[in-house]
């Protein structure tokens, strides 16, 4: 390498020097931007915390604890987040209960049983389900799905309402419009099936062929292989997929707001209208009546953020554990 002094002088001397040592500015730039991405995540949490600080000190811990006489009255400065936390949890849990068996079945079909020519189109179609905008789901829900599917389903489920303990969650005739927690739960089910299916399918595909071959060599049928060998092997990954779906369901706003009825009156029943954390923020944020009102809504946002953050971490951990267990040999 020639020493710098003997190179010809040119008007672009300093520019050339930069180009020669371009690695440092480039590395510095991408490190800076990467740190920025990390800072963004931390900043979101910090901003939510700061924005709700006044509400936190004014409302205290009772804001989010379960209570039987919850009230949400902005005009009288009465704020209780429990009805919304309950609404979010029950609709999401019901959606998971409905979605996991269906998703598991679809993932098993796509990973194990589907003929090769059908695999790609079916994978696409399941992913397209996830691509439909949430408001379109909501619109279709209000005018098509609710009257034709949810109302009959709800009327059928109302029979359970007569039972002593479980009946509390299934009481009462479903409203004529169908707007209810059940409606939200079923639409959420449709929306999270693609998420759970995709991750479960990847988990099943990552299980090494040796497991399948061993089971078949021992005389198991294909179903026995799947049910007694593959699913237990990938169970933590499947659980992770379910938790990812749960996280998605918790944060879903528009479709839920359009079909859940947006009311905190009355019973905890699935067949009655409810309200979720995301819905109250979406509905009331642009019309808040006081700083405390805004702070309370931001605090609800903080709770929602914390819940989805924890669930996401748990899910990634579980899926990662399955990935680590499998040796190099995996089905393509």
């Amino acid at each position, binding site marked *: 390498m020639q020493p710098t002094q003997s190179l010809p002088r040119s008007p672009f001397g300093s520019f050339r020097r930069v180009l020669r040592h371009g690695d440092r500015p480039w590395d510095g730039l991408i490190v800076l931007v990467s740190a920025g991405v990390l800072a963004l995540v931390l900043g979101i949490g910090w901003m939510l915390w700061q924005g709700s600080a006044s509400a936190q000190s004014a409302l205290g811990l009772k804001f989010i604890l379960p209570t039987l006489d919850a009230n949400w009255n902005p005009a009288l400065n009465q704020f209780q987040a429990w009805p919304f936390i309950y609404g979010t949890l029950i609709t999401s849990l019901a959606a998971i209960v409905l979605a996991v068996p269906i998703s598991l079945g679809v993932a098993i079909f796509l990973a194990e*049983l589907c003929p090769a020519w059908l695999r790609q189109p079916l994978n696409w179609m399941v992913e397209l389900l996830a691509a439909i905008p949430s408001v379109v789901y909501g619109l279709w829900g209000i005018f098509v799905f609710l009257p034709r599917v949810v109302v009959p389903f709800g009327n059928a489920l109302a029979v359970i309402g007569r039972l002593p303990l479980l009946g509390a969650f299934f009481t009462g005739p479903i409203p004529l419009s169908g707007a209810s927690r059940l409606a939200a739960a079923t639409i959420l089910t449709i929306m999270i099936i693609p998420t759970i299916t995709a991750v479960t399918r990847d988990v099943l595909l990552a299980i090494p062929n040796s497991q399948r071959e061993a089971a078949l060599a021992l005389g198991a049928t294909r179903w026995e292989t799947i049910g007694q060998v593959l699913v237990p092997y990938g169970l933590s990954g499947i659980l992770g997929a379910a938790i990812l779906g749960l996280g998605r369901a918790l944060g879903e706003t528009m479709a839920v707001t359009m079909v859940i009825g947006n009311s905190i009156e009355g019973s905890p029943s699935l067949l009655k209208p409810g309200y979720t954390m995301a819905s109250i923020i979406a509905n009331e944020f642009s019309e808040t009546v006081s700083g405390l009102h805004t702070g309370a809504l931001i605090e609800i946002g903080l709770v929602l953020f914390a819940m989805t953050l924890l669930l996401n971490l748990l899910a990634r951990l579980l899926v990662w554990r399955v990935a680590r267990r499998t040796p190099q040999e995996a089905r393509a």
Partner: protein
Amino acid sequence: MTAFTVLMNRHRLARARQRKAANAVMLSLTGLLTALALVPLFWIVIYVIARGGKYVNLAFFTQLPRPMGVPGGGVLHAIEGTLVLSFLAALISIPPGVLAAFYAARNPNTPLGVAVRFSTDVLSGVPSIVIGLVGYALIVQPQGHYSALAGAIALAILMLPIILRTTEEMLKLVPASLREASLALGAAEWKTSLSVLFPAALNGIVTGFLLAVARAAGETAPLLLTTLGNDHYDLGLIVRGGIQAHQSVFQIVGRMINQPVDSLPLTLWKYAQQPYPERIDQAWAVALVLMIFVLLINIIARVWIQARTRRLQG
């Protein structure tokens, strides 16, 4: 053959028949569940096309909304709003996403690399309404008014993890031999990244960008808190008025992005809640336009990514 053996064999055969039957039942059940899961897709698409198609006409795309009771009118404000928001959000989110992906792809195991991938996962899981809250706290509150800029920043935060993840995966797919050849020819690390790796991965990066735009175009919740809506947003008017008043390009662009805008999903949300049948019809038409837009981008992007991945893997 003792009587015991005969009975055992008969039991084994009966049991085998049971297991085969159970096998057939459960396997067909999974096929049925797959069909069941796909029913809503076809139902929604067909219904939206049938119901929305009746109302879509040229005026729909080129006119601003008319007051209730006056027939006609369109959703030009929403279409232009969606375009402005998507374009601005892409402008804001692509540079950081691509640059951070370069780092994460080259250094996946350093603390910062792990942190970036972790942050991407976290960001992709944040509910969109919470991102709207952040956009509100970040831009709307200090500025004192809703704007397209705030909405675009919220959408950019939404798009960032998608762009970052897709770019990172595409960069990892570029064969190591390409990078090594470039370095062997004497190119510096940074020049290799920009002139060799980036063009090689460009197809995939563009697909990631398309998927992110499709996602952002369909989002409503963050916009509820940052852009609110604007029935009189007409870019043609803004540009013409600006030229007539001898405003600079910066001023005209500033006027474009510094006021509340509407978007297709936001308009759909508003119209769906109104009691007028004509608004409901328009809502279905908006749903048709939005859905076709989003689905088309998704299909194009995935076809492109499939072809690209297959070619790179030889």
